[in-house]
């Protein structure tokens, strides 16, 4: 998958060693996976990103024994990271539906702040769709499977999320 190609390669032997309780291997795996899990959790859980990444990595390492194919570790970790990010964000988020008629107009030097503001106004589920489609490059079927929703739901969430961005940026 194209979006996975820039990631550091993980030696299957390292995964197997970690699965067999080699704690140095577990720590090495943690070093390698933490930036990727942080990249997935950050835009979904926003200010709770580090908490979400921490929770996701705990689930990943605790369940490592269940991973049959070491080559699939990034996809497997991503599914857990998205799920944990949504869960953590839901707990604390004052998430509002993504109908963003009241998105602020773009202030020139405020672009980054506007992006954050728009993201914060989306629900964690909508942010997850954006991350999976636009950052991770998954198609609607794959994103839907990962989020346990139909592809059509992914499509409509994506439409609304992107429309929100356009409104915020273009006024």
């Amino acid at each position, binding site marked *: 998958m194209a979006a996975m190609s820039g990631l550091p390669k993980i030696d299957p032997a390292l995964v197997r060693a970690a699965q067999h*309780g080699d*704690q140095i291997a577990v*720590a090495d795996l943690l070093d390698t996976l*933490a930036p990727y899990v942080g*990249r997935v*959790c950050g835009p979904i859980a926003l200010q709770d*990103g*580090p908490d979400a990444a*921490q929770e996701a990595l*705990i689930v990943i390492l605790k369940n490592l024994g269940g991973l049959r194919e070491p080559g699939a570790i990034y996809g497997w970790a991503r599914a857990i990271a998205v799920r944990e990010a949504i869960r953590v964000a839901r707990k604390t988020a004052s998430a509002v539906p993504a109908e963003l008629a009241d998105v602020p107009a773009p202030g020139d030097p405020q672009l980054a702040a506007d992006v954050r503001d728009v993201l914060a106004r989306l629900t964690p589920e909508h942010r997850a769709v954006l991350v999976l489609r636009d950052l991770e490059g998954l198609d609607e079927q794959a994103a839907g499977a990962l989020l346990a929703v139909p592809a059509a739901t992914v499509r409509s969430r994506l439409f609304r999320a992107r429309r929100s961005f356009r409104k915020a940026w273009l006024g």
Partner: protein
Amino acid sequence: MAELDPVRRMRVLAAATPGVAYAEKLIPAPFSTVWEAASDLEHELPRMITDLRSFEITSARGERLTASARGRLGQRASFDVVLRPGWCVMQSRLLIGGMAAVPEGEGTLFAFLGGLRFRGIRLLDPMLRPAARPLALRPIRRLEHRLQAR
């Protein structure tokens, strides 16, 4: 992008590893002072862990070390160690250990992990874990007291 600092990573390791004692404590000293002391494994570990008589580094390649440890009762163990600023993980055939530190305000948040490695430990974990925190706090307190006494 959500960054995980070394203490958060050590929390992950502790939560995911059955049978370990884990504690964190804020030490009122700068990170550089705390880590300079803690990372001097040969001198500091036997002071932090009183069951340990000596801990001798036998090889070093970058952040990967090997060490030979001797216990109070004369027992020996070989350790593989990963050591870099703010992060240390070590394991022998039967033991695992770890330390992590990050600056927090004017002090340092310090984490310590220690435990046993064997297959059945997973079954004992629910009983061991609640009782184990004070065990992990002791080495941090010893380090803190010595830094205060300097």
